[in-house]
């Protein structure tokens, strides 16, 4: 079997080209750069066509709801005059129950148009059901490849639920134990079936999310006569943040602060068999957001269209206990039950709202469906079964994999600011790899990648002894 797997990796580029219908090599520039905007602009569907495709397939036009009781709760614990209005875009109401339907709708539509017989997605998340749902509508076959179980065949409850949803929607679900070799299995299936690679990271997927950014701006203006001051986005692979921010920028040039939020899973290794079931979140966490933000091209396409450092203004983490707490608070105070992972950005927003004046507006841009397995009680109970201590206390003391600390007082809910410059430098390191000399194009590319002036890149390169055309 191992020989077969290695052969597959050698044919990776050839299989990918066939399976996504994009020749990525034409975008490459000089040593390290590529033309990202050209990749995005080559998507042959206009934003109006994308809206139409989504509308016709049960996607989009989800309601923006003001969370008045949660806002009032924030104001109880804020300085006088502080506590921004919190709104939530109820993306759980898309067909298949999450914003991922926006990505899947365009990928699947495109696959159908190009004449593929089926689609394959490698995902343990909501994207599986999203692809299965869209494939069902379009009469496409569908395979979802999931990292699902540890070596004892014990699965994360929320991933098991996603497998059920995929199967219910007609997909074949290939379930695997933990490990990055999932990618090879997925490649082998692409080669065997000649299906379309409905990757989360193609330009088609990300274009599909732009409508979310556009809608939330338009919805907010309708409700409040102004645009939001801040949009908080759960960040894992980066596509949600990238697409939403790109959509926002299409509506206004006025600044809207883009905040990424991830669940803090520091210390847990994502490819570890024993750590796999010691976490209570399988998406929206730092195990994805850190590696993908600092090296987007680690994804399953040669060039990822999800490039969050190009758009993000602030990045915060929030602990597992705080997200479970806010998920329950949303249920108790607002009367809506939603899945915990989607509430990562809500927990962060609850904390961030305290420091903004009352007339400011924060939009939390997603929710996800809840149900058996994908429920905070299912996840809390699962944690207990895996000897994770669940207790009340100060969430800042939480140690992922050891305990879950629910805030004993709502004043203790605190999003923790992350050092974005450090991540920007890490991205530069990852992209330049062994290149000792960079061209002007390379420098311009890096500046765009980290959304900074060229001087930021040049100063850093000087520090690490990399020469460039601009410097010499």
């Amino acid at each position, binding site marked *: 079997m191992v020989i077969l797997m290695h052969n597959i990796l050698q044919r990776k580029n050839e299989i990918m080209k066939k399976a996504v219908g994009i020749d990525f090599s034409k975008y490459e520039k000089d040593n390290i750069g590529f033309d990202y905007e050209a990749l995005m602009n080559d998507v042959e569907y206009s934003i109006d066509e994308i809206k139409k495709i989504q509308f016709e397939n049960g996607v989009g036009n989800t309601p923006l709801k003001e969370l008045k009781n949660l806002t009032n*709760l924030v104001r109880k614990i804020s300085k006088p005059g502080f506590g921004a209005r919190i709104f939530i875009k109820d993306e759980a109401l898309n067909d298949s129950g999450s914003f991922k339907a926006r990505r899947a709708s365009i990928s699947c539509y495109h696959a159908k148009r190009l004449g593929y017989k089926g689609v394959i997605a490698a995902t343990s998340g909501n994207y599986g059901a999203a692809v299965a749902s869209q494939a069902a509508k379009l009469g496409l076959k569908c395979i979802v490849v999931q990292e699902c179980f540890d070596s004892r065949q014990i699965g994360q409850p929320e991933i098991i*639920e996603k497998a059920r949803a995929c199967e219910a929607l007609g997909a074949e*679900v290939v379930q695997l134990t933990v*490990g990055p070799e999932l990618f090879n299995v997925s490649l082998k299936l692409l080669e*065997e079936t000649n299906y379309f690679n409905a990757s989360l990271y193609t330009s088609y997927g990300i274009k599909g999310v732009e409508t979310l950014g556009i809608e939330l701006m338009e919805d907010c203006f309708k409700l409040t006569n102004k645009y939001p001051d801040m949009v908080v986005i759960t960040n894992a692979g980066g596509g949600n943040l990238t697409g939403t921010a790109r959509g926002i920028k299409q509506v206004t040039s006025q600044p809207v602060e883009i905040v990424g939020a991830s669940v803090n899973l520091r210390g847990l290794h994502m490819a570890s068999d024993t750590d796999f079931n010691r976490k209570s979140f399988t998406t929206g966490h730092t195990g994805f957001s850190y590696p993908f933000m600092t090296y987007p091209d680690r994804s399953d396409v040669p060039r990822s269209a999800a490039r969050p450092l190009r758009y993000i203004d602030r990045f915060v983490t929030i602990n597992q206990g705080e997200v479970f707490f806010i998920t329950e608070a949303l249920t108790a105070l607002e009367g809506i039950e939603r899945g915990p992972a989607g509430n990562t950005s809500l927990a962060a927003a609850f904390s961030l709202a305290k420091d903004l004046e009352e007339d400011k507006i924060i939009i939390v841009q997603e929710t996800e469906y809840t149900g*058996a397995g994908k429920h905070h*009680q299912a996840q809390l109970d699962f944690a*207990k079964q895996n000897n994770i201590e669940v207790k009340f206390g100060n969430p800042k003391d939480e140690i992922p994999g050891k305990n879950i600390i629910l805030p004993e007082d709502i004043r203790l809910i605190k999003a923790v600011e992350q050092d974005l410059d450090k991540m920007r430098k890490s991205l530069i390191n990852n992209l330049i790899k062994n290149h000792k000399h960079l061209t002007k194009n390379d420098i311009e590319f890096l500046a765009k990648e980290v959304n900074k002036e060229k001087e930021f890149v040049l100063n850093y390169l000087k520090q690490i002894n990399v020469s460039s055309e601009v410097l010499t």
Partner: protein
Amino acid sequence: MIKKSTWVQIEKVILTPEERLPTIPEDTKKTPLIMWVKGFLLNDSKIGEIVKIKTKTGRIEEGILKEANPSFKHNFGNFCEELNKIDEMVLKELYGDLNA
């Protein structure tokens, strides 16, 4: 005996521990990469036998027959009293003494 055409789940070792990527964590490296797939059984077979199945997309897969009519049994978890405490905390903070 499981009858031909029954909906079943099979298990297959994709990589033995020795064949796994050198870069993965040590604990994972000690375990095989296992795959589970469901489909319709192509021949009457017994649990534990190597069988062939036809999956929903029409692919033929081979592996050890694990289960006939596999069901999902995930649920909402055992009752967690912590959730009642959270409700009480946030309601009290927002509306004051609940029993007043």
